[in-house]
């Protein structure tokens, strides 16, 4: 393995850890667990940054690993399907948004799309696990919270992207 590839792998592992810490810190903030399913989605900052730095496939891999470990640490085994489905759908949607509308959308719009995808995946997972369609009534409130927090997360990601000279680091 050459030095560039090892550097890339190391930084990807580091970003997985950063995402984990953000997810863990967020779960300790009581204000964001007060609304069922509502969250800030801080770990999504890392996912947005990863899509730009390492490409969608790597970002997806990191998001799956991060959400799997993070949900076991923060919410227990029962929360794994919610967290992982949310991470997968939101990362795929943000990847596609970046690929096909990256010229027009900044990270803010991408963050909003990712949050909406995350909310939809969680409600879909809950409706499958509970076998009930009425859980979809949660979605509008989640989307309102998710749109606001997604824009905030996108703004944070945009700032990280602008200030990190990743091409220099990976040289």
């Amino acid at each position, binding site marked *: 393995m050459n030095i560039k590839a090892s550097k890339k792998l190391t930084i990807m592992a580091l970003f997985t850890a950063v995402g984990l810490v953000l997810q863990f810190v967020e*779960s300790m903030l009581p204000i964001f*667990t*007060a*609304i*069922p*399913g509502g969250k800030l989605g801080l770990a999504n900052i890392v996912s947005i940054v990863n899509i730009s730095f390492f490409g969608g496939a790597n970002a997806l891999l990191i998001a799956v690993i991060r959400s799997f470990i993070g949900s076991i640490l*923060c*919410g*227990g085994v*029962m*929360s794994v399907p*919610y967290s992982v489905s949310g991470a997968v759908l939101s990362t795929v949607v943000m990847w596609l948004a970046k690929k096909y*509308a990256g010229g*027009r*959308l*900044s990270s*803010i*719009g991408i963050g*909003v*799309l990712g949050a*909406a995808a995350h909310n939809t995946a969680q409600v879909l997972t*809950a409706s499958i*696990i*509970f*076998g*009930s*369609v*009425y*859980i979809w*009534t*949660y*979605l*509008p*409130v989640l*989307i*309102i919270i*998710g*749109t606001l927090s997604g*824009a905030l997360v*996108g*703004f944070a990601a*945009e700032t990280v992207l602008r200030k990190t000279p990743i091409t220099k680091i990976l040289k």
Partner: protein
Amino acid sequence: MMTRADRFVTAFFLLAAVFALIFLNLAVYSAEPSAIVISVDGREYARYNPDELSEPRRIEVRSEYGYNLVEVSSEGARVLEASCPDKSDVHSGMISKSNQVIICAPNRVSIRIVGGSDDVDGVAY
């Protein structure tokens, strides 16, 4: 810093969510509540008629997944205590309109208010 497309996406989701909330209140929540149904892991655990509850009643829901203390009354239903880590069901507060639900995902508990003559409780067996 927000582009035009960003503003469009943000406004789209906010407006869609607001319209969905209006629709829910007009069409989904409007029926007169006729029963409060507590389910565990998709199976009906208990069912109450809110009109017959002159006093609030506390129900301990225990299963292999965990423990929830539910209060049902003529006003609706809420969760008072839960063994799950995030307590999002407790934070949900009171539900009072038909077709509203509280779920406790870790404990697989759901509480739903059934409305009108709709006797299908929306739970798959």
